[in-house]
Every structure is written in C-alpha cells, then in structure tokens.
C-alpha cells in the first residue's frame, strides 16, 4: 500500500507485457461515493495524437509502476464512456477537481485543489482510492499560499466546482506524504467516533 499524487500518474505510458507502448494516462476518474478510482482516460503517445476513445479500467491494470502502467495486452482497453459510467453517480455533477475550491461543512474555504492523493493497493484485485487533496491553502489554514495535504472521509461530496470536507479535516493537514497515511487514518477514526 502506498500513497502517490495523481500528477505522478498522468502522462505515464501504458505498456503491455509484450513491451508495446500503447497509450499514456490522461485523466484519473474516481467516484465521490467511496472515493475509488474506476480507471483512466487515455491519450495517444505521438506528439500530434489527442485523447483516445478507449480507456483503462483500474481492474485491468496489472501493475502501477514508477515509470509505466502495465497491462496484459491491448484488448483490456475499453470504451472511455464505460470507464466514465462506472464512476458516475445518479446525482453526480462531475468535473475536474483540479482548481476546485475546498469548503468545510461550516462554509469556510480552505483552499484550491492543486493535486489529488491516491492510495494504491496491489493493482491485481486491489483497490485504488482517493484519500486526500493537496491544496493551496487559504488564510483559514493560517498558511496562505503554501501547499498542504488534506485527508478526506470515506464518502466525499464533490462537484466540478466545490469539494466539501468536514470542518475537522483542517486539524489533520500534513505537509508531506510521509506522515499523511497516519493523518488519514486518524481523521477517519475520529469521524467514525469511539463506538
């Protein structure tokens, strides 16, 4: 289990076990209900190639390595729309969270999302969950302009414009990934309460 920024994943090449470089990661798609990453949209590898009509489901990822995303072969790719549908919710308003404002449930703006933190289990049969945001802090956090890591609850409230977090989240912000896993666990334990 490891933590990483989604910015480390985007643009990473998708490579088959036979060594063929078939695409590169474009967007990370996740569901607000549970925060699970459903998959990735893809772009072509050439300088002039744009987004592909095929995407990559997380369940088809064989390994998420430091330099490449490994898949069995090209047949595991599926239509991008099915990747998006798998992470859609009936009330979802959708959108790119980068640049969105983080608001507490008491209405305080904590900052703007500049990156998203994911927790990766073993890809084969494991999970990949969104566990936090990296935000450019507002004055409410006492360190305006600095980048901090904010843990998220299991179930998120999110749209393309505003991302809601419990007010208690600001007590668990971390400065780097080293201590962030513990902050996420402590934050979620507090939300669940002593019972």
């Amino acid at each position, binding site marked *: 289990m490891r933590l990483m920024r989604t910015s480390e994943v985007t643009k990473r090449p998708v490579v088959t076990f036979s060594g063929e470089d078939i695409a590169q990661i*474009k967007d990370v*798609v996740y569901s607000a209900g549970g925060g*699970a990453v459903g998959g990735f949209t893809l772009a072509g590898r050439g300088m002039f190639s744009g*987004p592909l009509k095929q995407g990559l489901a997380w369940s088809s990822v064989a390994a998420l390595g430091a330099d490449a995303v490994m898949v069995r072969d090209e047949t595991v790719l599926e239509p991008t729309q099915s990747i998006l549908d798998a992470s859609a919710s009936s009330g979802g308003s*959708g959108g*790119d*969270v980068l640049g969105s404002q983080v608001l507490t449930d008491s209405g305080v703006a904590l900052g703007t999302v500049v990156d998203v933190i994911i927790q990766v289990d073993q890809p084969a049969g494991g999970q990949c969950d969104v566990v936090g945001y990296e935000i450019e802090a507002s004055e409410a956090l006492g360190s305006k302009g600095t980048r901090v890591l904010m843990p998220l609850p299991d179930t998120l409230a999110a749209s393309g414009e505003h991302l809601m977090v419990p007010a208690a989240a600001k007590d668990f912000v971390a400065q780097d990934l080293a201590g962030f896993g513990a902050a996420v666990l402590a934050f979620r334990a507090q939300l669940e309460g002593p019972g």
Partner: protein
Amino acid sequence: MWWVWVIVALVVIALVVAAVLLVQSRRRRGGVIVDPTRPAGRPRRGGGV
C-alpha cells in the same frame, strides 16, 4: 521580392504548427475527474465503484 513571400510562408507554417501543438497539448493535459456526468436515462454499466 520573391523572398518576402518565402518568409511569409515560413512564418505562417510556423504559426500553424505552434497552434496545433498548443491545442494538442491542451487536449492531452491530464485531470482528475470526479463523478462524471451520466446522461439521463442511460443505464449504468460496469460494476460501479
């Protein structure tokens, strides 16, 4: 003055190539999409997450 037209043509070509590269880099730029909008009435596919 034929060389003026050559320079103009080269500048136009350079601008077109730069514009194409700019558009492509924007189209390829990555993001993090939450709860993608599902068209009304469309059945949910896949296992859901």
